[in-house]
């Protein structure tokens, strides 16, 4: 019972936080709200648990604190569910009439839901076969959760004693902390907690991508975007392996989507910017790559200095930083007081310069990048040509509509790839071993964000007009009611 309440408090916390930060937007995009609030709730609950645990507070008391916090938010901001339920009912994906008139659209919807059910099945079957997850899952994430759950008092000392190279106890604590929280309250180390944890992040990433693309373009493109992720076998494999790559990839996507949303029109939106900063912080709280993400995200904003009013830009960056600052403070504390030294950081020294000057390393990494580009995703057939065809048939890429976001997002994507490249150059580990075990996962972390950036940049998108007056969704609905095959790629605004 207490366990169920604790899960409910996490979800409620996420919904309330998103409702407060997104305000009007949340009312008009319930699918977006659901897919963003549950993972954010889990992330925030994990932070609350670790902070109070480090302060010596028992887990049961932490849940009480969460409940009090939720009651306070309810009291201050009112019941968020009224509008969510109302708008969910109003925002049907497609009406039956529309589907009946358009066989191609009907086919798309069928393939989407068929893929969704199939992937849920695949996830279940893989989890049944490997309930502890694959190596990194049990040896890093679930081991960490066990150590916290079995000894909630002495775990920081134990983490410090273990060598990072073997168990990665220097990694951030979102996944470990939340699983431990559940195990403590359940008084049972059931394998279904990490399985459910990864399930939520894997499928919420698909849901968020689909909802965000449909919001920025149209519902058909939203379905296609979600379908691409659903049909990527490697994405599902990463999920049911219980690795944290889908978790960090989810927060990359959420942060980029929220930032794009905040820049949809000229007015500064502090709530969305803070939410974007919060999700960036949660990315860093999920995996070390999240720290690189924050550096690249902030650096990519600097490119806008050439295009945007600097004062306006600094205000935006200020809100971004406000959102991530509390989490960054916790991560800094964790790195200093709890973590053993990171193997890549410790391995730096005079050899670093030698590695930087060694061009054969660049050649090796570049060849791996090229190879991964071809074989990425474990598809039966290389999918990249579809993206190229998409650009060709849609008449290219348009950066007019969301120009600031497009510039910042593409810069961020390039910086991430460059960042990964630099880490690979200076890694003290065997280069080929490191590339063979990590590069495909690093690409997978970026993949949902890449799909989002791609679809928003495509030309001839049906654009969304201002949200607060509530006309937009109705307009979209009307467009879709009169949907014809020949209008699939036509502007609908």
């Amino acid at each position, binding site marked *: 019972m207490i366990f169920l309440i604790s899960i409910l408090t996490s979800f409620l916390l996420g919904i309330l936080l998103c409702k407060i930060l997104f305000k009007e937007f949340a009312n008009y995009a319930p699918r977006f709200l659901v897919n963003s609030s549950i993972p954010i709730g889990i992330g925030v609950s994990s932070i609350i648990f670790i902070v109070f645990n480090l302060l010596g507070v028992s887990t049961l008391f932490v849940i009480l604190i969460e409940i009090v916090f939720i009651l306070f938010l309810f009291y201050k901001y009112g019941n968020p569910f009224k509008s969510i339920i109302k708008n969910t009912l109003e925002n049907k994906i497609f009406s039956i009439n529309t589907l009946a008139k358009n066989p*191609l659209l009907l086919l798309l919807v069928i393939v989407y839901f*068929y893929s969704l059910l*199939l992937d849920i099945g695949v996830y279940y079957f893989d989890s049944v076969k*490997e*309930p*502890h997850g694959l190596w990194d899952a049990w040896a890093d994430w679930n081991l960490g959760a066990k150590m916290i759950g079995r000894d909630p008092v002495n775990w920081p000392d134990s983490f410090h004693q*273990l060598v990072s190279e073997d168990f990665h106890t220097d990694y951030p604590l979102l996944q470990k902390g939340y699983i431990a929280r559940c195990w403590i309250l359940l008084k049972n180390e059931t394998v279904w907690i990490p399985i459910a944890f990864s399930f939520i992040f894997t499928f919420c990433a698909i849901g968020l991508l689909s909802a965000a693309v449909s919001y920025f373009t149209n519902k058909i493109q939203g379905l296609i975007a979600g379908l*691409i992720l659903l*049909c990527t076998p490697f994405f599902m494999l990463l999920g049911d392996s219980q690795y944290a790559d889908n978790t960090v990839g989810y927060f990359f996507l959420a942060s980029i989507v929220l930032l794009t949303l905040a820049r949809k029109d000229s007015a500064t939106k502090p709530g969305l910017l803070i939410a974007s900063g919060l999700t960036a912080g949660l990315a860093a709280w999920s995996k070390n790559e999240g720290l690189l993400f924050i550096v690249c995200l902030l650096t990519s904003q600097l490119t806008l200095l050439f295009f945007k009013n600097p004062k306006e830009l600094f205000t935006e960056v200020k809100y971004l930083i406000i959102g991530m600052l509390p989490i960054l403070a916790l991560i800094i504390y964790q790195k200093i007081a709890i973590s053993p030294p990171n193997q890549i950081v410790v391995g730096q020294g005079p050899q670093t310069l030698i590695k930087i000057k060694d061009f054969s390393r660049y050649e090796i990494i570049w060849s791996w990048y090229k190879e991964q580009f071809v074989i990425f995703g474990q598809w039966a057939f290389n999918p990249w040509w579809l993206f190229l065809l998409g650009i060709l048939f849609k008449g290219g890429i348009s950066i007019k509509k969301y120009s600031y976001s497009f510039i910042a997002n593409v810069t961020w994507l390039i910086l991430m790839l460059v960042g990964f490249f630099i880490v690979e150059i200076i890694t003290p580990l065997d280069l080929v071993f490191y590339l063979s075990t990590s590069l495909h996962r690093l690409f997978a972390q970026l993949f949902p964000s890449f799909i989002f950036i791609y679809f928003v940049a495509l030309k001839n998108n049906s654009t969304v007009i201002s949200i607060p007056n509530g006309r937009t969704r109705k307009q979209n609905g009307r467009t879709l009611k009169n949907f014809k095959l020949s209008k699939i790629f036509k502007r609908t605004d």
Partner: protein
Amino acid sequence: MYSHLLKYLQNGLLLLLISFMAWQQWKTFQKYKEGFHNPVAYTKKYYEKDYMTTVLATRYEGLRKMFPHTSHICYIGEPGDDFPTWSANYSFTQYLASPSVFIKDKIDCDTIVYNLHWSIHINTKNNYHLNNGWHIVKDFNNGLIVLAR
């Protein structure tokens, strides 16, 4: 004329895309058809039948019960193991017998665990620890042996 052609091409591309996705998912279905055909039988066949649950969890159960709270224990693996095997056995020990911390590069802790998954028993005649003040506290007869000073 041109725009008409483009629309047909765009619809064709969408159809191609959907077909490709459906084909990809059909291949995935084929890979998991045993499960999809009979999920209940699949679950019965595989659930809790994995190596970690059936073999390893049972093997380490005694060690885990012996150290229910955090202890710092030196870890000695099977001599002659190659690196991946040694590393895997060390990781299994840490995962299944946590919250104790197993220290791998130290040999002089008060408590020591031998993980002789292959040779099973310590060679009492020339073992360093047994000849230098340690004694066997518990031999689980599965290669896991606890020594104390």
